[in-house]
């Protein structure tokens, strides 16, 4: 469990750093995606049980991992994919209008 937590923590901090420091919009989207992946890792680790089988109950009952977080992870992935698609679409629009993806340059262009 502990390695999963530590990895999640490192990834979240990395993502927040990327969002705060980078000025390229694409990199900010990558930062957001890193946090999303970290949270999905946290979700999966929440349902993890050592030595358990995958939650497919076709034989008699056995020790399985908690299937609920995996269902949630799927939903979270779908949501994050749609948000990312929308973000990238907006960035394309921005690039068409201003010819740049840098936050600072967009600010300067507006005056």
């Amino acid at each position: 469990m502990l390695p999963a937590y530590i990895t999640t923590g490192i990834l979240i901090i990395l993502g927040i750093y990327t969002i705060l420091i980078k000025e390229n919009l694409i990199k900010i989207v990558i930062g957001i995606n890193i946090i999303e992946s970290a949270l999905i890792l946290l979700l999966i680790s929440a349902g993890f049980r050592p030595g358990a089988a995958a939650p497919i109950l076709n034989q008699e009952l056995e020790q399985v991992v908690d299937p609920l977080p995996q269902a949630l992870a799927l939903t979270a992935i779908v949501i994050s994919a749609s948000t990312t698609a929308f973000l990238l679409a907006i960035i394309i629009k921005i690039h068409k209008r201003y010819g740049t993806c840098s936050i600072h340059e967009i600010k300067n262009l507006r005056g």
Partner: protein
Amino acid sequence: MNAIIYLVVLPLGTAFLLGILYFFKKTYSRSLILVSVLLHSGLIFWISRQALFEPLLYSPGDWDRLGIFLLVDSFSVLMLSLTGLLVPLAVIYSWRWVDHNEAKYYILLFILTAGISGMVITADLFNLFVFFEITSIASYALVAIPKKDASIEGTLKYIIPGTIGGLFVLAGIILTYQGTGHLGLAGIAREFHLIPELIQKTIITFFVFGFGLKIALVPLHTWLPDSYTGAPLPYNVLSSGLVINAPLLALLRILYLFLNPELIQSGGITGLLIMLGALTIIVGHITAYQQDNIMRLLAYSSVAQMGYIIIGPALATEAGLIGGSLHMLNHALMKGALFFSAGLIIIKARSRNINDFQGLGSSLPLVSAAFVISGLAIVGLPPFNGFVSKLLLLQATLESEQFLPALIILLGSFLSLIYYLKIFTILYSKKGSSEIKKYDPAGLWSLKAPALLLSSLCLILGLVPSLPLKIINKIPHHLMESINFIELFPGG
């Protein structure tokens, strides 16, 4: 109670049907929109009347205790009735207002309605997150509808903080599940106190930060005015009435049910939220005063009003919760009336700068009267509805011996009076040059009627505050004592 699920299914289905209809037969689309919106309002009315006597519970799929529940209690009824009122008005207003991307606009509007209805009636934490994201993504896209520079930029400034807020909410939900093994609100309410205290605090911080971004509490509010300048005006009405209120409702449910009111008071959450609320009021009003663009001014005014709304429930007393909920309702009505009438004034003046509004008070008498009535209501003058809710909030803060927020509520009203008076004087001042009166789109009743209806509601609810209070007085019963909430569910 099967009908509850149709609160979500109806607008969602309409959204998809509308997409197909726009492809084949464009002519019927408006009638479909109107029928669906009115059906939704009727459904809300019918369900709300039943839910007022006893909260309605529905478990899709009949899974009994294992089910993922939908619940309509009086808190949901408050937001649902706002949805049922504001969405039809916004749709009627949009007939004339929205000229770009019409098909996409209405489809997104219905998805937004579905998201908000779902967010309000769900009793499950993960469903809450899903509906929260549906609402958010629909709102981001709605801001971008006019395809102007301002709207694209506003969307970008909205979507980045919004996504980050959503991620923090998700992190809070995951930690809650890990701690309690439940996702249903009732199960979590029963077992939240078993989580170690440090993790409890982390979870609550995540939720306050994540939802706080959406509610536009002050250090996190910068996206709101930018998104309002670019967005289509009817969306702004829905935004300040529903999109920023629904996360607040979710946050309050989470705070009140997971922690009990005593813990909110002693655990420092009251202090934190009151501080944020007071800051929100002051910063919102002062920045609103500096604005020349009417949209930005109203946006900052919305920010400030969220400060009032959060202070009440933050006290964690019955009086505070009632005052805050009433102000939530009143603010949605007042801000709706202000935006609708401001839209007509903008069309007439052909400018969004308030200094160009000179002399419009006499050429648009009814609309300007609606603007003044709702402006005075939001300042908090009697006999309008804002007065009643601000008075209740003031009483609640004094009862809990929180004198600083009480002072700030009064000071905030004074500050808002200054900038609204500025607009009123410009509206009713005489214009020097003669005015061209050829093109007069402001005579259209589909634009006027929503403004007039909402502003007359401001007056009516100010004269008869017992009407909304009948619903609102029932809210604390299921929130203040989490045991009352848990008992609603089977096996609780």
